């Protein structure tokens, strides 16, 4: 089996050919689906758990603390121990809660993030599906999550939960516009919605560098809006533990709560990967003009490391916001979106279209 860390397409093709040679096409197809599903599921769980660990370490770093350091070396197994604890906890359903919706809500949240992860190109040839409308697909799938949040708040039969859910609804629906428009700017630049094509188009430079100032503005808007879209501080109004105790998941316990928790972290990962993919070149190494030596050294680092490096960098930025900023109020939050981000974004799109039309960006 050919294995090349710089290009996974050979490996995946070989597995594909091997399976189709050994069994009937239907079974080969089903086996492929199962393999991809299991790999994504495992990846999902591991990333989710270690994101929680990362967040706790970053948060501890910001707060003059040590963070988890008891279970395993540097507390590496802390989150796994937490997961086991959450699995063993009692699932409480409060009286007069809408049982069906109450049980379904956490799964909707987690399935939304699970679907989004399928389209992310981790490295060359390493993605489950490569839609020709990848950006659109990501947007569509990630907005399913809010239905889960709304259902959770509605079905809990708790006033705190309901307020949290309504806030979340208003917030996510508004900020989705900004996220979409910010992504649209890069779609205009690269002329494609396919994520792999967007990455390939950044071989000679990332869009954040090639696209002049408008691309930087888009990137900043994307960071702000996506932080709001995934309900993280300083936009964590849906949870707002100092006002609504825990917002929409107040009444959830055990593994159902863990699903919400994991879903939140995975959403952060998805948003960070999307930012890394469309603005920071995905798995493309950093190239500076005609510096041949430098470019060669950068090429030597495998794309998968580039991808995760960029994603972790953006996740760190998002965590940084959360641990240093106080929370906004709901009216300020909506003012920020409708009065500032959206108009800026629209003007920005206009400018970008003009730049692309005139061919002024670095090709």
């Amino acid at each position, binding site marked *: 089996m050919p294995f090349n860390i710089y290009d996974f397409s050979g490996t995946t093709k070989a597995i594909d050919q091997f399976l189709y040679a050994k069994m009937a096409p239907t079974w080969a197809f089903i086996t492929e689906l199962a393999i991809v599903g299991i790999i994504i599921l495992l990846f999902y769980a591991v990333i989710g758990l270690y994101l929680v660990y990362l967040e706790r370490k970053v948060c501890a770093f910001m*707060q003059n603390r040590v963070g988890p350091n008891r279970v395993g070396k540097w507390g590496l197994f802390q989150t796994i121990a937490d997961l086991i604890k959450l699995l063993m906890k009692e699932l409480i359903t409060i009286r007069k809660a809408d049982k069906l919706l109450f049980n379904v809500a956490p799964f909707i949240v987690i399935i939304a993030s699970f679907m989004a992860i399928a389209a992310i190109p981790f490295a060359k040839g390493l993605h489950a599906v490569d839609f020709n409308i990848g950006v659109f697909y990501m947007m569509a799938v990630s907005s399913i999550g809010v239905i889960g949040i709304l259902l959770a708040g509605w079905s809990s039969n708790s006033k705190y939960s309901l307020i949290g859910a309504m806030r979340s609804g208003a917030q996510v629906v508004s900020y989705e516009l900004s996220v979409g428009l910010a992504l649209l700017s890069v779609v205009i630049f690269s002329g494609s919605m396919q994520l792999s094509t967007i990455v390939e188009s950044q071989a000679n430079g990332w869009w954040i560098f090639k696209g002049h100032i408008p691309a930087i503005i888009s990137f900043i808007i994307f960071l702000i809006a996506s932080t709001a879209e995934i309900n993280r501080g300083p936009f964590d109004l849906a949870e707002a533990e100092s006002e609504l105790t825990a917002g929409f998941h107040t009444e959830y316990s055990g593994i159902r709560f863990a699903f919400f928790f994991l879903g939140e972290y995975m959403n952060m990962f998805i948003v960070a990967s999307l930012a890394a993919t469309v603005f920071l070149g995905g798995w493309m190494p950093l190239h500076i003009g005609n510096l041949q030596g430098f470019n060669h050294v950068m090429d030597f680092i495998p794309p998968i490391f580039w991808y995760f490096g960029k994603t972790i960098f953006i996740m760190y930025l998002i965590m940084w916001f959360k641990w240093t900023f106080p*929370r*906004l109020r709901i009216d300020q939050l909506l003012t920020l979106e409708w009065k500032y981000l959206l108009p800026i974004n629209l003007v920005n799109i206009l400018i970008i279209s003009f730049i692309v039309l005139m061919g002024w960006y670095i090709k």
Partner: protein
Amino acid sequence: MQEVELQDILTAREDGDYIINIGPQHPSTHGVLRFVVSLKGEMLEYVIPHCGYIHRGIEKMCERLTYPQIIHLTDRMDYLSAHMNNEAVSLLVEKATGVEVPERVKYIRTILSELQRIQSHQLWWAAFGMDMGGLTCFFYGLRDREKILDIFEESFGSRLLHSYICPGGLMNDIHPNFQKRTKEFIKYFRKKLPEFDELLTGNIIFEMRTKGMGVLSKEEAISYGLTGPPGRASNFACDIRKLYPYSAYDKVDFKEILYTEGDTWARYKVRMDEMWESMKIIEQLIDNIPEGDFTAKMKPVIRLPEGEYSQRVETARGELGVYVVSKGEKTPYRMHFRTPNFSNLFVMNRLAAGNKIADLIAISGSLDLVIPDIDR
């Protein structure tokens, strides 16, 4: 929103109102306080504070206790101003029995009160930051508060409920390290207090949430009986340390912090500035503690002559008044505490009604409520 009296609210309450209990178990009430709030969407229609969840009947209990014993109960009212509470009762007993305490005691009492004030404001800042959603503030505040608690622990063995100031003087003399460590702390905290500002004060989100929020005029502040930082934020000069100096406050030079805005931001700034002033007071006194006894000669059984006595001190939260009716016994006939938090609490409806639910948390945070002090 026009002002509504509590009684009107209770009668105007309708079945269709969307009523939420904030508390008695809620992360932002910092204790077992309960706000019944009625919401229209995110807007608060009215706020009714319900207190009494940890009412222990301290005033009634005092009638069965001797004056040195009462000291131990006063710690448990405003546990963040334990020294000031002790001092209030001690000053009253000394005034009634005509005992003159040594100069050394006065100096130490003042230093301890100011250390306590800094410590209390640090914890308030930490909790206020957390109420606004800035979780990191909590750890910064507690990090520096720990240094003061260590000083306390070294001198008198306890970190929170000291019962250290007693009628006639102090329980025992200060630790030999006390002066050195206090000076070290002041030097340390002068560097660290600007960090507090960096984290919260200049933050655009924080300013948007606090400026112009919950504005109270001077007249209203007086009529609601507001004292302490919330009163001074409304330009009401109510600092007992200036008005009726006790202990060594007449010997030190400090400024009474006054702001005219009367909003949440002003209440925040008053406390931030007070920390600087407290450090200034400690610096003036710490090197000049006179030698001498740590307690005056008191009778083994303290009896207050028949009559009525009162004493007021400035705690970290406002004016604490102690009122005693004595029949010449070793226990008071009646005892009453006028605690600052009780008056400060009932301005909540006036400040929060008509604002958003998030502002309720910010406003109650800016009033710096300590629930055991409300309930006693």
